[in-house]
């Protein structure tokens, strides 16, 4: 094998910067020369992106090449911009004859057209834009000469539904561009084997390259001097300490877990901010202009701190962060590492981070995260299955690019990892859905979207269907949102969910974009607000799916920690005492048993179970338990779930706890519940949009998200009744089952603890139960029974009306 040497200009450029070619960079060059696929696994800040692009830059340095050479795909639009900026430096400084361009949803139409006519050497894009490019009739020519495909943040892409769409696009690219080599860039993951298969149908030929591990991060847990809260997730009590940290560092990234929490923490920090330090706010619902401004100020070094959500988890390279603060429990080790990696983007210096638990349970979770980091264990996230809805979208896209043969396409699709086991019947059913809607009743013959020509190839019946497809590409179906504008002709602040707006009355105040705002009304589908003053009790917009679930890996560690007294010495005194009290007054759940407490309080009988299966699983468990209690005559009134435990209450005491938790709960009850639950409906709604049954946008017509929502539910009801085996219902069930992986976790747990349920009868609430009981009233209990909901709503409204009458 030839020793890898850099061409002279590169050598000089590296030297000029005081860099040397790192081992993994050399290896990537070598693999590229051999034309091999590669998976580069390295922590953030390891020069990963450069290592990915270096082979392409070297190959393109000679000039004299036309057409697209390298395709780069990243999960974030912002990342393509950032990577482009970073490419610009070597290209300009070495005077390389390399043209690059970004193509995302933000790229203007005329520039897109130009890119297709005269492709750049390097194209930076997103999965959705790639799908679009593949749907054009000239896709084969456009991608035919492609030599390299670089997939950035592969770990993030591969565990999302967007990744499923991307995997199909890659399978297509392998057909169109047989010469191309595929490179994945990934953070350290629990199961690199899975990424190898994801990258290539021949995983054994994918070389895994390990980047420099970098210096070990220094991570601490900040335990407040004062009183440690028993409940809550926002950690406002620590605002003063966080402010102290910001003061003591050059630039701090303050990560929080939800957008609502970001608003609250930002507000609390500014109340502490006597020195007027430049502290900014960044989250996904803020107006893009505002986000760009914050990012630019950060890049300039003009900010002392940014309070942010996962909007800044990935990629973007800001030099000077010297501290990362995680407010609230980390919920997962992999994400925490990613966040910590945002500090000190230089490999040889350790990243520094501080974790701020919001309550006593979160202290345990933070400790567990530190232990995991020391042990080098990561969260394993099960990959999403290859959904038939995504497949339907892909088949439509392929049809837009030209006629296809079903057998060939089936083989191609199975080269995508999520579809490796796709049955031919499922493929055919999906194809039939795209062609005719897939109904048993063959009444749409004349409205077919695909027909077979004489030689058996499938083709689009109408060009305008291609336009419809292109307006609806992608797998992200968002909750409908509305723009927030400061004054009728003022600037826009960002977006809040329409659902939140529907709960507002004119005059209500809410916290958004770091301001206290007063809702004035709706004008032209925008939320008009003005700045409010004073210390009112503002609402805070919440966003669907905003909550991060606790990873099972971390949950297991927390369970383990409770069981081993030896580790308690590392805990803060207050937390240790809390554990000791729990042990004395009730019991500590050991790793191989399930602790269930029952006690009466305020005329209600409570049952608290410590399953540590994550909030989502506990939500489901709550539904199942209340169903069971109903049957057992315990007259359940409601439940509330956290990541660690679940509390259910009723009017009668639960005697036989073991039978309530019997295993068969997850059999028939679960099936029955799923069939009735809104979860399946929601999943169907998304699938129907992704599959193209319901359009997000129709040429020449704008639909609001809510309308999509509404009609999808009607379609669901009708299909369930008349065509229960329709391919989209199948897809919804499969996806819901994947979403229920938490349930499987719960099933495993229940199986494990059968016969080992420790039921403790208490005369009063236990120390552990405080956190969850305190949450009652803040959580909503969703019901499936329309009449019961209506009855309750009407009763409450009537009571309210009566009160008013009395008062008046």
């Amino acid at each position, binding site marked *: 094998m030839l020793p890898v040497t850099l061409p002279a200009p590169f050598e000089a450029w590296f030297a000029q910067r005081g860099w040397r070619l790192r081992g993994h960079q050399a290896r990537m060059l070598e693999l590229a020369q051999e034309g091999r696929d590669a998976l580069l696994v390295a922590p953030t800040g390891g020069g990963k992106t450069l290592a990915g692009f270096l082979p392409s830059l070297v190959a393109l340095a000679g000039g004299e090449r036309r057409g697209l050479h390298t395709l780069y795909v990243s999960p974030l639009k912002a990342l393509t911009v950032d990577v482009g900026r970073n490419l610009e430096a070597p290209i300009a400084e070495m005077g390389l004859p390399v043209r690059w361009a970004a193509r995302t949803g933000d790229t203007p139409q005329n520039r897109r057209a130009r890119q297709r006519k005269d492709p750049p050497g390097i194209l930076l894009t997103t999965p959705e834009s790639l799908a679009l490019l593949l749907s054009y009739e000239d896709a084969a020519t456009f991608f035919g000469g492609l030599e390299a495909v670089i997939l950035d943040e592969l770990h993030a892409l591969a565990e999302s539904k967007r990744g499923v769409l991307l995997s199909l696009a890659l399978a297509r690219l392998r057909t169109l561009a047989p010469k191309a080599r595929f490179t994945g860039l990934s953070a350290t993951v629990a199961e690199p084997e899975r990424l190898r298969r994801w990258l290539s149908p021949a995983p054994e030929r994918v070389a895994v390259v390990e980047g420099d591990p970098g210096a070990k991060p220094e991570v601490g847990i900040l335990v407040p001097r004062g009183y440690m809260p028993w409940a809550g997730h926002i950690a406002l009590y620590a605002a003063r300490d966080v402010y102290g940290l910001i003061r003591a560092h050059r630039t701090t990234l303050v990560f929080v877990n939800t957008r609502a929490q970001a608003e609250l923490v930002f507000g609390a920090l500014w109340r502490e901010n006597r020195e007027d330090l430049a502290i900014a706010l960044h989250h996904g619902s803020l107006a893009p202009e505002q986000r760009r401004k914050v990012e630019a100020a950060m890049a300039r070094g003009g900010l002392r701190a940014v309070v942010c959500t996962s909007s800044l988890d990935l990629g973007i390279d800001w030099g000077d962060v010297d501290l990362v603060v995680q407010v609230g429990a980390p919920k997962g080790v992999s994400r925490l590492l990613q966040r910590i990696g945002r500090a000190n983007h230089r490999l040889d210096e350790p990243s520094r981070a501080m974790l701020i638990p919001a309550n006593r349970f979160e202290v345990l979770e933070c400790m567990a995260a530190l232990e995991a980091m020391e042990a080098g264990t990561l969260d394993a996230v099960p990959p999403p299955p290859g959904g038939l809805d995504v497949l339907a979208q892909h088949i439509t896209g392929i049809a837009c690019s030209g006629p296809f043969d079903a057998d060939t396409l089936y083989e191609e699709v199975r080269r995508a990892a999520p579809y490796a086991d796709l049955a031919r019947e499922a493929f055919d059913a999906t194809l039939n859905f795209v062609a*005719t*809607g897939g*109904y048993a*009743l063959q*009444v*749409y013959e004349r*409205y077919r*979207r695909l027909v077979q020509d004489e030689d058996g190839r499938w083709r689009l019946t*109408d060009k*305008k*269907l291609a336009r*419809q497809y292109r307006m609806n590409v992608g797998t992200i179906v968002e909750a*409908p949102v*509305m723009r927030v504008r400061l004054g009728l002709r003022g600037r826009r602040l960002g977006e809040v969910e*329409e659902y939140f*707006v*529907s*709960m507002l009355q004119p005059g209500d105040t809410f916290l958004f974009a770091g301001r206290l705002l007063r809702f004035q*009304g*709706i004008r*032209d*589908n925008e939320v008009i607000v003005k700045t409010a003053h004073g210390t009112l009790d503002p609402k805070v917009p919440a966003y669907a799916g905003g909550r991060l679930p606790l990873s099972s890996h971390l949950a297991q560690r927390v369970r383990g920690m409770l069981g081993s007294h030896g580790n308690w010495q590392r805990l803060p005194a207050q937390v240790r005492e809390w554990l000791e009290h729990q042990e004395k007054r009730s019991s500590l759940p050991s790793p191989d048993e399930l602790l269930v407490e029952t006690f009466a309080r305020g005329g209600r009988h409570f049952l608290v179970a410590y399953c540590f299966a994550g909030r989502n699983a506990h939500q489901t468990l709550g539904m199942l338990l209340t169903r069971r209690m109903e049957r057992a005559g315990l007259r359940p009134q409601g439940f509330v779930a956290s990541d660690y435990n679940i509390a259910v209450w009723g009017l009668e005491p639960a005697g036989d706890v073991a039978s309530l938790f019997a295993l068969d709960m997850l059999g028939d009850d679960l099936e029955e519940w799923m069939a009735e639950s809104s979860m399946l409906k929601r999943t169907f709604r998304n699938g129907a949009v992704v599959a193209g*049954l*319901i*359009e997000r946008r*129709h040429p020449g017509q*704008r*639909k*609001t998200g*809510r*309308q999509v929502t*509404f*009609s999808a539910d*009607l*379609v669901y*009801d*009708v*299909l369930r*009744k*008349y*065509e229960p085996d*329709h391919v989209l219902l199948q897809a919804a069930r499969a996806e819901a089952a994947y979403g229920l992986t938490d349930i499987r976790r719960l099933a495993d747990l229940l199986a494990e603890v059968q016969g080992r349920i420790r039921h403790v009868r208490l005369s009063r609430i236990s120390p552990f139960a405080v956190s969850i009981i305190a949450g009652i009233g803040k959580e*909503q*209990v969703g*019901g499936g*029974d*329309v*009449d019961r*909901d*209506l*009855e*309750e*709503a*009407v009763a*409450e*409204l009537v009571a309210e*009306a009566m009160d008013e009458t009395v008062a008046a």
Partner: protein
Amino acid sequence: MAEIRVRGVRLVLEPCGAVWWPERRALLVADLHFEKGSAYARRGALLPPWDTAATLARLEAAVERRAPKLVVSLGDAFHDRHGPASLMDGARTRLAALARGRDWLWLSGNHDPLPPRDLGGEAAAALELDGLHLRHAPGPDVAGEIAGHLHPKARLATSRVRVVRPCFAGDGNRLLLPAFGSFTGGLNALHPAIAGLFPAGFDAWLLGERRVFRVPHARLRPEQALYHTLHEELEHGSE
């Protein structure tokens, strides 16, 4: 079920969205929107072709329960003018069977200005009965009226529960029916197009599974965001 009076005439509001008029043994339904699925299919969105069957099944159940002497469809029985031709044979037969042995009146709507042909029954623009005016779109005069067209629905929100349901809306002088069709959306009852018909306020009767729930309009929640688009769709149809 709820019993109300419109201009002194006793009417029963049923949870399926129909009105039962005991003295006349008449069943009133509005906005069936048959063949909405195939209307969408014509535009490239292959929605399930089962909506007509689903709507019919509910209509059959209502007719069977009451055995009416007269059935009145208050307009927009078909989603568009292609509707009657798109009807599958099975549905055609079922409709004919329903209309047999009783009076059946198709009032015309804005989606189907022409009365459906060869489906049995009579067609008319409006009907006056015992001082009540039955027609598709509510008119400006309020001397006892029963109409459809607006697809009223109501939103309730309390600290724990949020519900959106199709509803009747009325003030004793005028009654609006919810849309009966399986694929029909709705317009919030607080929208000016509906609320404006009741200057002195109105009650909404929300459809539950087994009964209807009366809520005074002051207790309903608006759905501000959707006024424009939905209202436009109702006014101009979807073509």
